[in-house]
């Protein structure tokens, strides 16, 4: 997640400090130079065969020692499930605060690091500051900008070998890779969202068609994944949070948890038979109508319009 370096560079500029990146793993030294190119002023490399696989217990022990040695002002970690567990446990070991899933991180006029995150199922944003250091925060994928690569960037690369690595308490019995969509939905410029208004899984082909024309991806709401078991992922607060240029909500009522996941979309279109659906309050363009009629007609209209352009 290169956004960590992008956001980290901005914050260290505001804080008047330096950006250090940490790489743990095995045979990872080549990555250090790359991180310098992206803007890390210092890269700490812990290269050890015991770190070949991500074992949270072992990584946590190493990071705790590094943090105690380096005493950073702020430790940024990616908001994946692994990252969030790591961040919470690191904070517990150091007896400090941790703010997960930050939508915003900035230095205020008093020099404090101010964080913002979603709470109450999307109903509110809480603004918090830390009372302890290091300040630990996690950031969601794609929330902040990726840094530019500059081959001429200079930085210090430090190999750290005096770290004691503990064997993991947990044994990984089995790993089953899951099919991850080639392009992550977070990266899509256009997302077509389908909700309970779609009666059958096969009906998604009309959304697929629209997505194809717009060069976008199709997303789903949680009930389609959890209740109907049609899919394994969803868009929303507890799933993927997206910020495309265009989000088209088809047959989606717009419960607050879903809305929280699409809030940062530039333009939102809502297509729904119910004019009172909460999604209408959240949309730039509202079509009250049956998605089974509107979407094929919309695809056709776009096809003509794009062909003539």
């Amino acid at each position, binding site marked *: 997640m290169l956004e960590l370096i992008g956001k980290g560079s901005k914050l260290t500029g505001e804080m008047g400090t330096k950006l250090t990146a940490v790489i743990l793993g095995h045979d990872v030294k080549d990555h250090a130079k790359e991180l310098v190119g992206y803007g890390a002023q210092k890269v700490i490399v812990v290269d050890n065969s015991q770190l070949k696989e991500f074992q949270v217990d072992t990584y946590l022990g190493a990071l705790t020692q590094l943090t105690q040695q380096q005493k950073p002002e702020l430790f940024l970690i990616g908001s994946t499930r692994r990252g969030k567990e790591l961040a919470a446990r690191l904070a*517990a070991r150091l007896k400090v605060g941790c703010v*997960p899933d930050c939508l915003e991180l900035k230095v205020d006029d008093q020099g404090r690091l101010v964080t913002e995150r979603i709470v109450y199922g999307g109903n*509110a944003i809480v603004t918090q500051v830390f009372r302890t250091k290091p300040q630990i925060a996690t950031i969601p994928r794609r929330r902040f900008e990726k840094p530019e690569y500059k081959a001429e960037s200079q930085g210090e690369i430090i190999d750290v070998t005096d770290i004691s690595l503990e064997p993991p308490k947990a044994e990984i019995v089995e790993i089953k890779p899951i099919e991850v969509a080639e392009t992550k939905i977070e990266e899509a410029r256009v997302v077509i969202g389908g909700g309970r208004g779609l009666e059958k899984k096969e009906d998604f082909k009309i959304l697929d068609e629209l997505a194809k024309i717009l060069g976008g991806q199709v997303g789903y709401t949680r009930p389609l994944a959890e209740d109907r078991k049609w899919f394994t992922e969803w868009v929303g607060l507890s799933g993927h949070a997206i910020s495309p240029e265009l989000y088209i909500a088809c047959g989606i009522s717009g*419960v607050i948890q879903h809305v929280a996941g699409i809030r940062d979309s530039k333009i939102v279109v809502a297509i729904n038979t119910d004019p009172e659906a909460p999604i209408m309050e*959240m949309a*730039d363009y509202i079509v009250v*109508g049956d998605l089974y009629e509107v979407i094929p*007609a919309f695809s056709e209209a776009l096809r003509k319009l794009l062909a003539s352009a």
Partner: protein
Amino acid sequence: MVRILVCVKQAIDVSQLKVDSATRRLITVDAPKKISDFDKNALEEAIRIKEKLGGEVFTVTVGPEDAKTTLREALAMGADKAYSMSDPIFENSDTLATSYILAETIKKIGPFDLILCGEASIDSFSAQVGPRLAEQLAIPLITYARRLNLEGDAVTAERGLEDCSQTMKVKMPALVTVTKEINEPRIPSLMAIMKASKKEIVMWKAADLNVASGKVGENGSAVQVLDVLAPKMERKKIVIKGESAKETAEKLAKALVQEGVVGR
């Protein structure tokens, strides 16, 4: 015989929360409260383990005095013993302080073979109390479990990560946080509710635990809340309407081209 502890939180029912649109403040007074959803999954899982292997299910909450009602519900579902940690000095505890209070409670009523928590609470959703508690107790942890199995002195759990699903095995005592997918929590029968109403809920205050007052409540918290506000919703809300679906669709397509989000 397994001794299981389930940590539950009385959370604001976020689906029923209202916002004052003028001030963007949440109306939390009288907002309905309930057991946080995933904590209910943790309870259900504990009760299923007890039904299968025998044992005892304890449940604990840290919160205001009325969080008792949450424990009543847990007892009705099938928990055997309930503990409420409630004291004015616990108010506004963050995850650091809350996990400390829980750890001190466990030192007094434990030890437990297995501690279960929900993956996160529905209101603050920070997913920290479980992992922090495991660290305080220095026991193994598995997060985001969607399947759980106890065998001998080991617990095996399957968890879904972004790129894979992992099956992890740890020795008990251990702490596991569970997701919604793990089970469908039961709805207690009227009989069970009535039986539960007679069970005792142990109400403890700070003085009953070995807690340092500087480590709980606002004083003991590492994160300070400055403000809680509803997000701004500024959308255009333009209704597109034509004589037919075809005309509506054409109008919509044109509008989106004008916005510059289509046709590049």
